[in-house]
């Protein structure tokens, strides 16, 4: 059996809102192998985004174990988690989350500013350009986000995620703000990335979108069913 890229064991997540406790995730155990395309589905409020944030090291679980590529990341400090994000994880969000005053190319180059791999500026630019080429936006590199369409913005976000050659791409409702045709286009790009060997974990409530994935995990009320 090959090593799991992601190994979540008995993950619990609670939020405290005043006196009330909100139990978002209950004893979630999930293993994802390298090269898989996994989709997590479930109704809104089921905890799927929280799960994605925990896997993306943006959030910490209340209890449980999380091994990313065999390394326990829960004991790591802010700096190591940030480094992990900049070197191994790529995010794609529903709302694209591009920086409005940077050009398309600069947005894609952004992770290299924070990654510790010894990449000089020239090399970083090359990598960013090839990522942009993969999503088919080579003729738009000097555009600002507001000059792009929704689909183009999401493709830019994907380029930003793949520029660093991440171990894992985390997509949170990547088609949620797009019309079905553009959404399909984005899914095609993700499928192509998967075919090229990238591990992808996607979160969506849309069953049709979920069908693009190789494997679907249902989540309800914070537990996998």
């Amino acid at each position, binding site marked *: 059996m090959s090593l799991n890229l992601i190994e979540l064991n008995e993950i619990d997540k609670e939020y405290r809102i005043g006196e009330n406790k909100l139990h978002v995730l209950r004893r979630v155990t999930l293993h994802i192998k390298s090269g898989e395309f996994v989709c997590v589905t479930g109704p809104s409020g089921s905890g799927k985004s929280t799960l994605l944030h925990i896997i993306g090291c*943006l959030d910490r679980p209340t209890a449980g174990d999380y091994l990313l590529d065999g390394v326990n990341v829960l004991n790591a400090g*802010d*700096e190591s988690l940030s480094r992990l994000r900049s070197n191994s994880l790529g995010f794609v969000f529903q709302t694209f989350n591009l920086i409005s005053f940077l050009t398309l190319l600069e947005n894609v180059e952004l992770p290299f500013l924070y990654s510790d791999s010894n990449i000089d500026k020239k090399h970083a630019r090359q990598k960013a350009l090839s990522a942009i080429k993969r999503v088919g936006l080579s003729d738009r590199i000097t555009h600002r986000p507001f000059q792009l369409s929704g689909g183009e913005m999401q493709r830019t976000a994907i380029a930003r995620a793949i520029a660093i050659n991440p171990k894992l791409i985390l997509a949170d409702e990547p088609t949620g703000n797009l019309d079905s045709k553009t959404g399909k286009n984005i899914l095609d790009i993700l499928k192509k990335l998967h075919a090229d060997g990238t591990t992808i974990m996607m979160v969506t409530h849309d069953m049709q979108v979920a069908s693009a994935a190789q494997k679907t995990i249902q989540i309800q009320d914070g537990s996998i069913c």
Partner: protein
Amino acid sequence: MLKKLNKYFQVANIATRCILMHKLRSALSLCGVMCGVMAVLTMVAIGEGAKEELISRIEQLGTKNIYIKASPLTKAREHDAIEKLSRGLTIYDRGRIKAGCVYVKDIVCVKDVKADIFGVSSDVSPRIMACTSEYAAVQGLQPVLGRFFKPSDVSAGEMVCVIGDSIADRIGADGNVGGHIQIGGHVFKVIGHLGRVEWNPDKNAVISVKNYNEMVFIPLGLDRLFINEASAGSISRLDTLTEMVVAVKDIKHVFDAGDIIKRVLEVTHNGVNDYQVVIPEELLMEARKTQKTFNMVLAAIGSISLLVGGIGIMNIMLATVSERTREIGIRRAVGATKNDIIIQFLAETILLTFSGGIIGVVFGVIVVFFISIFASWPIMITTWAILLPLILSVIIGIFFGLFPAVKASAMDPITALRYE
């Protein structure tokens, strides 16, 4: 290393762009710091100018010299002086000091003479001084024409004189070297002219410097010619002096020499305070000290406006941080550490305050220039006057930028990403 430098360059680049994105807002917030820097610069320049002027005034007295001045006594004290057999500052003190103090190189005796000079109009008030031949050397005076009198002139009681520039101007041809002038009815041969000496009349000055341009020097001893009958009653009047200038061999021994002189005079004058010992070097040190405090107070007053400017900057930065919450979230998601966020916002604040500082220095120099022209104050723009406000502007940037930057870095990435 190169990578790190590159990173700082990119941080600076982004900071510049963010500042330029809101030109009006940045310009307005920068104004506060600019005014503060201007205030500090002007204050320090004024302070330094005053200090330089005072110091140059004291230095004109000669830092190797010690002045002993006869001080007039009140009626009651005069009685006391007679009782204690003190005859005031006399030429005999010279020998006692010379014998008592090994550090002494020369002692010049000076006595003021009251007499009119024939041919000098009333707008010039000449001062006639009877002095020994060392006076010129000790005071650093060099005749431009002719010579100063020699020891032999003094001992022989030659009727010669050396005159200052303004006096020479007024008298005309008679005042040329080799000519003769009348002082109080006596004829003196002019043997030398002093060159023009820079002299700044300032009533507020702590130390008055003699105006050599309006001076006439005659050999000591000839002063007796001018003593009128009324004051010639007591013999002591003939030997009294107005001033003695003691030149010390080495500047290191000025204070020791001063102490010895004070002790010698105290003993010989039987404790009567009919003289005053002035040590320019001592005044200089005191002046430096007080001016330093004065300058610091001025700088502190200027810094208050800089502080106000800093608060304005902090306000703007807090607004910027909350406006860019989402950007902070994005940066965190792609791998920025908390420190990266702090550095980014801190860089922006420092860039803002530092540019304010640069502009402030430029305007400050202009303001100082106009003050020195219109108020004719002695103003000096020293390196310190420029560096201090610039350093302060950076410190203000760090101080007031840290809180907004830390606030930005402490945001929860997920909340920041969802911020609308």
